[in-house]
């Protein structure tokens, strides 16, 4: 049994893109909890309920909607938006215990966030923002890939971008990524890890050369902001070498791309990899949009294949195998530690802080 990163409860997680949740039932498993999502008929509000009928555990996501009620596809047990069972077949009395759990759910920044833990502690104000996903002037391509790997492996992957040079060479990786030192910052209370890598004079990878049209070498900045446990933001800036933002902070000659990931543990050894690439340049160029969509999908699948392989390989290791961490891992180690703290906090009863 390879190492598995424990789940951090009492946290918000991205369960779906907003456009995925509608009048068709959608099943997703988050932190081992099977969930069903849909929108109400009148106000389009997202609803999240436990995805198992109380009767014989049939998946409600494989059932149907009658108005705002889910009718179990097996025997017709019917649930309202709060999870209360309002109808059972053949009898008038609905057993008092006939109820499935409902989950706090928030639609924000084109994402559907669900709270896994004690509902009384759910505070939507603590959901980290990714405004570029739903702001005028930005265009986003996105996708989601399930990976058969511990979610901690995806966190490791994203916090250490030196792997771009080797795993993603010819796409987003160039020699300078692995060669350039990083700066790591941890905001302990906020649970945020920041990792920055600023390359002053770097080769322009095809991902950016073909999309921006920049010829020659570039200044490339990668500023990661990981809001543990789920949201990962990579603020990417590229510009012709030597071109930096203006003294007033404006940056008319820089290309800004926001690369967003939602890292949502699904079950032990399984993670949803939600990926998004947003840009505020060439926004009406459909060719650029399709290029970035295809190219980034290829990059994500390189990670998916690598992590699937890594998880399988770790599964063959004896217990207590050794790793070796070096300077490139400074941010990843910080993220592991923050996650461990969140896991610990989520495992014990908490009082809501007013």
């Amino acid at each position, binding site marked *: 049994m390879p190492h598995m990163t424990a789940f951090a409860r009492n946290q918000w997680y991205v369960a779906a893109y907003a456009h995925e949740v509608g009048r068709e039932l959608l099943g997703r498993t988050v932190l081992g909890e099977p969930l069903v999502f849909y929108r109400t008929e009148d106000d389009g509000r997202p609803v999240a309920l436990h995805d198992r009928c109380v009767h014989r555990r049939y998946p409600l996501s494989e059932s149907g909607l009658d108005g705002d009620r889910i009718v179990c596809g097996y025997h017709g047990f019917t649930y309202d938006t709060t999870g209360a069972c309002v109808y059972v077949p053949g009898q008038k009395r609905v057993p008092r215990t006939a109820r499935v759990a409902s989950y706090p759910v928030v639609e924000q920044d084109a994402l559907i966030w669900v709270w896994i833990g004690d509902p009384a502690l759910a505070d939507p104000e603590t959901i980290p923002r990714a405004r570029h996903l739903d702001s005028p002037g930005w265009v986003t391509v996105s996708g989601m890939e399930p990976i058969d790997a511990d979610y901690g492996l995806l966190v490791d992957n994203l916090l250490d971008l030196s792997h771009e040079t080797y795993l993603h060479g010819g796409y987003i990786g160039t020699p300078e990524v692995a060669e350039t030192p990083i*700066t790591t910052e941890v905001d302990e*209370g906020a649970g945020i890890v920041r990792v920055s890598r600023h390359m002053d004079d770097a080769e322009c990878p095809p991902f950016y050369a073909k999309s921006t049209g920049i010829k020659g070498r570039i200044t490339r900045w990668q500023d990661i902001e990981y809001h543990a446990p789920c949201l990962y933001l990579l603020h990417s800036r590229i510009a012709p070498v030597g071109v930096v933002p203006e003294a007033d902070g404006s940056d008319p000659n820089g290309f800004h791309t926001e690369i967003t990931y939602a890292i949502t543990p699904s079950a032990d050894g399984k993670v949803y990899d939600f990926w998004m690439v947003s840009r505020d340049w060439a926004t009406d160029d459909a060719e650029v949009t399709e290029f970035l969509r295809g190219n980034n999908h290829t990059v994500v699948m390189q990670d998916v294949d690598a992590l699937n392989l890594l998880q399988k390989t770790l599964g063959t290791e004896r217990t207590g195998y050794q790793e070796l*961490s070096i300077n490139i891992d*400074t941010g990843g180690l910080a993220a592991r530690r923050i996650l461990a703290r969140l896991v610990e906090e989520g495992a014990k009863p908490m009082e809501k802080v007013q």
Partner: protein
Amino acid sequence: MTSPTGEIYRIDWLPGTDVLHGTCHCGAEHSAEDPIEMWEWMLGHPEGHTQRDPNDPNDSRDRHAPHAPHAPQGNGS
């Protein structure tokens, strides 16, 4: 997520070297060539976190009181 506390830990990998330079939220600083050792020092706060006297140019102490060696953590799992 909880609210920001302003407790910021920072580690700079010094360009052209293998040296990591850490700054604790208390202002204490430390250098190391191993991120695990660096995080152990950082998270050991306040143990071993002494600050240089900014008014004393002769105070060149390491700003890190020596502490007993301990078994590595994080390189095993």
